[in-house]
Every structure is written in structure tokens, then in C-alpha cells.
């Protein structure tokens, strides 16, 4: 991790995260994130190739439920929370990108 986080990195990440940061925030975060990542440099530099990762503190496996129907929510209650609704569906502005 020799290269420090750049302003371009912050712009790219802000887009991935769907945050319309303003210019001042981009500048501030470029500085702050770089500084936080400097503290992470010790971790990044550790030579622990042979150590397995721990994604989870519990050693549980195979937690499963039976394939049995449980009650769904009331549609009116669900849609009442939505910013925009039409024809019992959630309305969103037009979509430019593609589904994956």
C-alpha cells in the first residue's frame, strides 16, 4: 500500500457508494481517509499469509429453516412508508444503467 489514497480514488468510491459529495467533502475525505488508512498501514504490512481469515466469531454451520410459509406484511402498511407509489408498486425515476 505504498500509494496514498488520491482525490480521484475518493471520487470513484463516492460514486460506487452513491454519495453525491460536494467538492469540499471530497477534499476533506481525501485527507481524512488517507490519514485513517495510514493507521491501517501496520495491519496492511503484516506478514500473515498463512493465517486463515475469520469472517465470523461463531463456528456455527448449517443454520436452516423449514420450507414453510409464514405471513407476509400488509401491503398498505408497506407502501405507506414509500416515498412514491403507483399501482401498488414502488415508483422510481427512470433507470439509466442495466440490471446485472
Amino acid at each position, binding site marked *: 500500500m505504498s500509494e496514498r489514497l488520491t482525490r480521484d480514488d475518493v471520487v*470513484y*468510491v463516492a460514486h460506487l457508494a452513491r*454519495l453525491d459529495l*460536494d467538492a469540499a467533502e471530497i477534499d476533506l475525505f481525501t485527507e481524512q481517509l488517507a490519514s485513517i488508512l495510514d493507521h491501517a498501514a501496520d495491519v496492511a504490512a503484516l506478514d500473515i499469509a498463512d493465517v486463515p481469515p475469520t469472517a465470523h*466469531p*461463531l463456528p456455527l454451520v448449517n443454520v436452516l429453516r423449514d420450507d414453510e410459509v409464514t405471513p407476509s406484511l400488509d401491503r398498505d*402498511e408497506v407502501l405507506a412508508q414509500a416515498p412514491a407509489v403507483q399501482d401498488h408498486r414502488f415508483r422510481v425515476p427512470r433507470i439509466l444503467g442495466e440490471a446485472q
Partner: protein
Amino acid sequence: MTALDIAASVRSGERSAVEVVEEHLARIAASESDIHAFNLVMGEQARAAAAAVDARVSAGEEAGPLAGVPVALKDNLCTRGVPTTCSSKILEGWVPPYDATVVTRLIKAGAVPVGKTNLDEFAMGSSTENSAFGPTKNPRDPRRVPGGSSGGSAAAVAAGFAPLAVGSDTGGSIRQPAAFCGVVGVKPTYGAVSRYGLIAFASSLDQIGPFAHTVADAALLLEVMGGHDPADSTSIAEPAASLSASLTEGVNGLRIGIVTELSGRGIAPDVAARLGEAVAVLTAAGAEVDEVSVPAAIHGLPAYYLIAPAECSSNLARYDGVRYGLRVDGPDVEAMNGATREAGFGAEVKRRIMLGTYALSAGYYDAYYGKAQKVRTLIIRDFGAAYAEFDLLLSPTAPTTAFELGAKTADPYSMYLSDVCTIPSNLAGHPAMSVPFGTGDDGLPVGVQVLAPALGEPTMFRAAAVLEGAMNERGAA
């Protein structure tokens, strides 16, 4: 009056639950405006819940172990029909259509929820200053922070608004505010309390736990909330451990290790002095106390600040303006998403989403997130080695007493440092609790942290009870 005493008097009919809740609502009305512990005081719902408990009592039904006990809920726990905000503008006005499992269990146990407490937005912070609705003040000194992120819950107990409160702890968010406000706070073993209905910050670290004035009350609340829940895949299969029974067993013969890495460098001298006194108390009670090294603990803080933001960046993606909460319109869906999230999240949440997105993004995963997960393995190994020799570990809960409002808001990393002692337990999934143990030179509370291996809560509570007993004697003397 303790929760145990309240519940006993309500169950026996000596006091009514309504009377108890009115007394607490009156206290809230008198000083909540100075403290701002709550995002929402649930006055009417609380009165109705209390009346329901009284009806159970007069009908001769079992009213539950928390009969009539007011309890404050951190505002990241879903409550059916009651707004739940995470202290974020992005969820302002959202009304969950369901209760968190712990809320269901509390109500079943006869508890009376009195309000939703303030927190750092989405539980990200250590001072409750990152709330979209303004900071909570420390009841011991309103110029000071209550700690965070469960600052509202800690303050609610400290101010006498409720004898019990529920919080969540991802890197110290129960224990550090408990220490700052002078109350007991417990982070249980990961998986001991269901997370269903807890609005996620970092899923592999989040755990719900109790705040109380006394160790016995904290044990009671944890017993009520804990135990297997089929709605949470990461819930431990066993029923909740029995804690109350072991509280009087003492520490005679227990081996207790002081964690070198969490107790020396960076710890304020007055806090270190209280830790030394705690050691003396435990030794006098028959424990063997010695120093022990947990070398990987020094990597806990940086590893945490890679893992927690990474998980948060994914957990908070759903706040996109489509299904609930805030929407800021835009010409297309991507613009709407970006404008909504920009307007709805505060600075610390954005910072962590950015950090986590970066840590997971192509080309950096191995260096950051992947490495941090390996550090987690090292921390678990090193704790494992320590627990081969010791039953419990000990450290301060936080490096200092409560700091002043605004003291650390400009420098995120200095704020992060206040969780340096608490984070390793979250990374390992182990239980730990903070017990009030005297005051610092500034007269503010100091907390001592007792750490235990996974499912070691019964032993952990024994040591906590001994420390509490010593404090009570001191107070009585």
C-alpha cells in the same frame, strides 16, 4: 430503586406499574431537556403497557421478571408502530412494521418501554455527538459527552429516567458510555442475544446488551433478552445462561489477568490508578491476579476500522430513497440515490461508508479487509492463549473519563482511540462488561472492564459483583 425491587413490588401488588411509570415519566419531564437522552418519549404507549401489566397482576397471571420496570430502548431497535430513526435524517419518520426480538421478549417479561434513546447516527461514534437530532449530555456533567454510541441509553439510566436501558455494542458502544456515565454496561458473547430487529451497523460485531445501575439488574435484563432466536442465523443454539444465581459466588480461586496492551500506554494516570485499586479488591477477595500479554490486541483498532466500515458500507446501501425513509428527487434513479444519501447521512456515516467501500473495492480487498480478517484470527488466538492461563481478563473500559462536548469532533482518529480497550472483544466475539469503579481526578466516573472467553458471562458477572460490592462498602464507609 432497582429493577429487581420494582418488579418484585409490582408482582406482589405493593406498587402499580402505572405508578412506577408515572414517576419515571415525571423525572423525564423534569430534566430531559437538559440531557436529551431520548429521540422519542413513548408516554402514552408506556402508560398503556404499564396498565396491561397491572391487569395481568390483578388477574393473578404471571406478570414476568421485569413486571412494570421502565426500560429505555436505543433508537436502532425496531419497535412496531413507533418511529425508529437511528438518529439519522435518512430514516426520519420511518415506522417499522415489526418488533425486534429483544423488544418482544422485554414486553413479554412485563417491561415497560418508555422511549427511544439517542445515539451516534447508525451507532457510529463514541460520544453521541453524531446524532442528526443533537448530542446527548452526560448527566454527571452536562458539558461532557455521555460516550457513545449508546449515549442516550447510558444517560437515561444515569439520570434515573429508567432503571434499565438497552444498547448495542459494535466496538464498545455499551461499555464506553457505561463507564462515562457511571453505570453497568454489558456486551454479551456474539450470538447470545438475537440481533433480529437491531438495525445493523457491522453485522459480525454488533451485539445487543443491557445498561443498569447494578450488576444484578444487568444480569436480569440480559437473562430476559438472551437465548436462541430462530430468526437470527448467528444466534447461539443454547438458551440464555443463568447469571443471577452465580452473582454471590465471589472470585476466590479465580485467575485474573491484566491485559498489558490495554492497560499501559495511552491510559490516563487516574484511570490506571482505579484499575490498580480494582486489582487490590479482587486479590483481597481471593483471586490470583497477574499481568498477561495479548499481543495482537494492538492491531485491534486499525483492524476494526477496516472491518466495521466495510460491513457498514454494505448494510447502509439499502437507504436509497426507494422503499422507505428520505428521498431527494433526481432526474434518474442513480441521481436520486446519490442525492438522497448525500442529504440523509451525516459526516461520520459518510466517512465510514467511504472507508469501507474503498477497503472492499477491487485491488484493495486483500490488503485491507482480507488482512483485517486475519488479524481477527490472531486476536482470537492470543486471547485463547491468555484464557488458557486465566479465567478472566481485566483492563480499563476507556483510556480517559468523559471528555468535553466538541473536544474530538474535528479529528476522527482521536475519537476512535477512545474505543481502543473495548474493540478487541468485539473482534473476538467475546463478552466484556464495564463496572463503575470510583472517579477520576475530575470527579467523573471511571469504568473497569472485565473480559471473559465466549459464553464466560457467569464468571464475568461474579467478578463484576465483587467490584460493585467493594464500591458499595466504600460508599457506605
